[in-house]
């Protein structure tokens, strides 16, 4: 598999309050964390390239599109950048809703630098893992799509741990034919051992 060239993660700051935005930016500069600022949810949506890893620091309450609305829009567009909400007032109901929708974390203003930086690092690590997993899943699906229906049937049964004899009873074909299908399939998806086949099939079925 071709390893994608790793892009450096960026912390995106979306807050309508310029003072807050710039002060967070100052903090990130101090620890040499690449960061970009946006004054509104729309500005961010227009500029953001979904292939750019990182995380999103988002103010819940903003004029125009609010933080929660941006969260929904990103979900609709299948953009899974981890979101750290920053809220200026403890609106419990709103906070619960954001967390339910899968926000990474929620930090109340004002906050200590360490809390913010730790959370940003964790969110970026999660984003890296998620992206890697999504690449693997896509790749596994692509490889499995090369299989014929019969090969797919054989593989699906084989990875559940059934023996050749059991599979041949199930599908009504000879054990030699099953061997042939399985080797062909393993060759096509590019694995040598059955344990690897099991792992790949697991990814492809996500």
């Amino acid at each position, binding site marked *: 598999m071709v390893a994608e060239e790793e892009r450096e993660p960026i912390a995106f700051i979306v807050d309508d309050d310029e003072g807050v935005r710039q*002060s967070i930016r100052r903090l990130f500069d101090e620890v040499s964390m690449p960061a970009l600022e946006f004054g509104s949810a729309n500005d961010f949506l227009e500029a953001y390239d979904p292939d750019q890893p990182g995380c999103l620091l988002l103010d819940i309450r903003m004029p125009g599109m609010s933080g929660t609305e941006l969260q929904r829009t990103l979900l609709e567009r299948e953009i899974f950048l981890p979101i750290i909400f920053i809220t*200026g007032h403890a609106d419990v109901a709103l906070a619960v809703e954001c967390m339910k929708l899968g926000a990474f974390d929620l930090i109340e203003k004002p906050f200590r*630098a360490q809390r913010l930086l730790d959370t940003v690092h964790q969110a970026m690590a999660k984003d890296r893992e998620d992206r890697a997993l999504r690449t693997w899943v896509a790749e596994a699906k692509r490889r499995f799509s090369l299989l014929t229906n019969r090969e797919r049937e054989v593989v699906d049964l084989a990875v559940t741990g059934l023996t050749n004899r059991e599979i041949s009873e199930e599908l009504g074909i000879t054990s030699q034919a099953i061997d042939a299908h399985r080797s062909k399939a393993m060759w096509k998806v590019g694995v040598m051992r059955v344990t690897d086949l099991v792992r790949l099939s697991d990814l492809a079925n996500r």
Partner: protein
Amino acid sequence: MGTAPPPRSRRQSLAVTILLAGAVLALDLSVPLGVAGGVPYVAVVLVSLRSPDPRLPIRTAVLCSVLTLAGLLLSPSGGVVWMVLANRTLAVFAIGVTAVLGTRWQEASQEMAKQQLRLAEVSRVNMAGELASGIAHELNQPLASVLNYAEAASLAVRRGEVSPEKLLKDLQSIADGAELGGQILRRLRGFLAHRPIERSPHNINALVREAMSLLSSERKQLSIDMQIRIPATLPRVMVDPVLIQQVLVNLARNAIEAMQDSETKQLVIRAAQHDSEDVEIAIEDSGKGPERPDIETLFEHFVSTKPEGLGVGLAISRSIVEAHGGHLTAERNPYRGMTFRFTLPPVDAAPSAEG
């Protein structure tokens, strides 16, 4: 500005009632109306209902009933005795019913006035809660930014890589944040003074002129052309003058701010009464008009399009007007600018202050 007539006192009411009752008796005795002579006593009972003394109507009814029957004995007029008797009894009945119904009606309207005051109190409490949460939000912004700069500076110092210029910049940002926090509190202070609403009758013209004098320097600076068109015939309104002037100042200040860059700068304040109901006050400007498509959102707390606006002026004005039982609405003028209107109860319609 005319002075208010003092509320009718108990003694005055009693005197008027007795006088009227005497007049009706004289009429009854002097004019040979015969059977119907007792009926005008109903009017006496009605007049007595206006007294602040809640027992006066019933007492008046008793007095009038006695006089009605006395009139029968004293009156020289003849007629069929049983018919006259029946008619006098009917008159007494009418007097009694008027007194009872009138008293009931009075009690009901007093109860209503109390409810209205309670409602006003509830809306004040809501307003206070909303304001508190809004203030927390506003103050958190400079606090967060102060904290961030302080942390960034201490990170830099700890790493030993700090230039005096950089440190100075951080310290400057911290000072700016603290100053901003103070400014927010200062702008809010005028709005926060909590006190119960105290209503009394006031002349609208005087209220408006006084409120506008508070803005005279702003008006002069921008050379605003202000016109006040308030007919002298308007009844007075039952209001807390300080609060209503706050509303007038908020609305006029917004209007002036909206006309800052306009060529024509006309501020017109009108007042009118439609169908003897609430008095309506309109503040019309020739400014740039609303910058948001949905005018209703301007009334929300902390909605502002001004660099140093807090966005509480309209929200507070609406609460105040509603606490007085009125409505505050906004509209876009057909040609240019906006008009804000609010209604206030005239003295007659307002629940009595002694309630």
